[in-house]
């Protein structure tokens, strides 16, 4: 028998993706792919789609199978060895709680979204890439759920993440980003997630956070994180490819894509502020500051990404300068907000110790000592006097990003930014010019945003008092509040044979 000639990579890719498609005989393309043109994106030739990794389905299964085998071996070992005791201290777990309650449902959302694009795009190359990513994202959600179930045995706040995701005020920030994208068409979705989120911004989510997990002894997170991240390079590459493909297909696509890039850059940046807060305040051993991360991954690398696209007419996302101006204020304002609303969160907050305050002074020489350190020190003194501060009101949220309206004007750092606009007789509020502009371009959509405080006042969240609402969220009395008085802290001291903190309840 004659030996079949071994195909090279390109032939193999073409044979195992493009050749999987078929022509339609009794339905038109428009009937089969009804979502492919309402957004205004014009594609003339889907066969021009190129997957730079040229990953075929058989190779995909092989690699993913190997990743899963490795990961689950480590997860099993983690449980058997009580590895949760290896983290630096119990405060660290609170960063993980935010990650797992905010990001895990996003992974699942990405799984749904790429299943949609895999069906909606008329080109076979894009269908195969979308299907692979849809399966990847489901895998990410699953591995993170396994990690949740490990930590949930020992720590508070992780017992009902999907219920919380659909209701809790701060989780509405990631939820609304993804649902904005999921409720759009396939091209906007893939621009929002693959390009803006994964290609431009995801380095800031995973690099410092996974490094932070490694540094803080959290081997469960390191393992699911790096296993997921090994898929991420493929996702990022898809993000760049899809943008180039759309731009090459028709000149009319440029203004539509630029607007999506502007929108999702800003929305993604607002979302990442919470990651910045974790980097600056919540990791007992710190890897880099938010400011350093933003400089490395956005100001330097992001600029180069946009240089690559300059020949198509794409420019840096609108309002990027604002993100740079805010970089020395952002995380301090957010931490103070979460500290003040700590009784209504499913993780603990605290005032950093002196050495941590010194680190912040060093990393933020222009702002920290002047605006933030004195407030943190004051709050710590109040706590010592038994007057731990909590804000009993409900925060006003930005209609677009859904973050409480706490950000100030970097040129006038003690003055908050309030923007507003009137639509259909109602007044809407915004944290920034960028959030206002996003709303004004799509007011019919954005005016319908589900804002948790509004919903509470309308009677849709279990009642009018904070205990009613927390019950509606399925929070228990141990989930939130001051770390020092938490059950997590008391348990940790017990397990580690440490003297209980003087102040611990």
């Amino acid at each position, binding site marked *: 028998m004659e030996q079949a000639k071994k195909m*090279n*990579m390109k032939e193999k890719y073409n044979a195992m993706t493009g050749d999987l498609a078929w022509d339609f005989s009794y339905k038109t393309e428009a009937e089969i792919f009804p979502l492919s043109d309402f957004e205004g994106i014009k594609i003339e030739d889907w066969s021009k789609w190129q997957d*730079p*990794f*040229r*990953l075929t389905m058989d*190779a995909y299964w092989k*690699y993913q199978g*190997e*990743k899963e085998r490795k990961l689950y071996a480590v997860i099993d070992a983690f449980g058997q060895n009580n590895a949760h005791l290896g983290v630096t201290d119990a405060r660290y777990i609170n960063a993980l709680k935010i990650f797992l309650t905010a990001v895990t449902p996003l992974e699942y959302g990405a799984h749904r979204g790429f299943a949609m694009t895999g069906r909606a795009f008329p080109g076979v190359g894009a269908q195969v890439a979308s299907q692979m990513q849809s399966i990847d994202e489901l895998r990410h959600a699953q591995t993170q759920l396994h990690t949740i179930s490990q930590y949930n045995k020992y720590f508070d706040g992780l017992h009902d993440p999907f219920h919380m995701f659909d209701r809790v005020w701060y989780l509405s920030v990631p939820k609304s980003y993804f649902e904005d994208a999921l409720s759009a068409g396939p091209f906007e979705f893939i621009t929002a997630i693959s390009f803006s989120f994964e290609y431009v911004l*995801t*380095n800031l989510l*995973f*690099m410092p956070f*996974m*490094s*932070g*997990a*490694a*540094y803080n002894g959290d081997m469960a997170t*390191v393992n699911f994180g*790096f296993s997921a*991240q*090994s898929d*991420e*390079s*493929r996702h*990022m*590459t898809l993000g*760049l490819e899809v943008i180039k493909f759309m731009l090459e297909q028709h000149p009319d696509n440029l203004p539509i894509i630029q607007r999506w890039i502007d929108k999702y850059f800003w929305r993604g940046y607002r979302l990442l502020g919470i990651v910045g807060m974790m980097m600056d305040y919540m990791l007992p051993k710190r*890897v880099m500051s938010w400011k350093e991360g933003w400089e490395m991954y956005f100001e*330097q*690398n992001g600029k*180069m*990404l946009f*240089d*690559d696209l300059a020949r198509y007419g794409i420019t840096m996302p609108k309002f990027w300068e604002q993100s740079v101006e805010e970089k020395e204020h952002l995380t301090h304002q957010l931490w103070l907000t979460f500290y003040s609303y700590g009784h209504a969160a499913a993780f603990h907050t605290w005032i950093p110790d002196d050495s941590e305050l010194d680190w912040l002074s060093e990393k933020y020489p222009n702002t920290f000592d002047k605006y933030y350190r004195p407030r943190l020190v004051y709050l710590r003194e109040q706590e010592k006097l038994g007057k731990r501060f909590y804000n009993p009101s409900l925060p006003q949220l930005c209609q677009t990003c859904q973050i409480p309206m706490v950000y100030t004007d970097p040129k006038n750092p003690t003055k908050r930014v309030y923007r507003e606009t009137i639509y259909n007789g109602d007044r809407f509020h915004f944290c920034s010019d960028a959030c206002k502009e996003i709303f004004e371009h799509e007011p019919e959509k954005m005016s319908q945003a589900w804002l948790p405080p509004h919903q509470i006042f309308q009677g849709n969240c279990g009642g009018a008092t904070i205990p009613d609402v927390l019950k509606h969220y399925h929070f228990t009395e141990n989930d939130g509040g001051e770390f020092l008085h938490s059950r997590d802290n008391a348990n940790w001291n017990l397990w580690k044979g440490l003297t209980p903190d003087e102040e611990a309840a």
Partner: protein
Amino acid sequence: MSEKMVFLALQDNEDARPIREAIEADNPLAVITQFPGVYKIDAPGRLVINRESVEERIGRAWNPQDIHLSLVTLSGNIDETEDYFALERT
């Protein structure tokens, strides 16, 4: 930084070590920055991983697509064949 840079990051484990060594040998301008659990490799213009260089170090066949098992992130345009995996930005 006026020069166009590319980078990739690899998990800091035994599987990735021969890849790192091959990169160091074949890319004299590459600079490695170590972080906990991961390292980032930056280079001006082009960064290449050659199949042969990795195979020399591990003593068996290696497919450039095996990089998928160790990659954490990358930046640059991909150029990939049976013999190498490269990132470019010109």
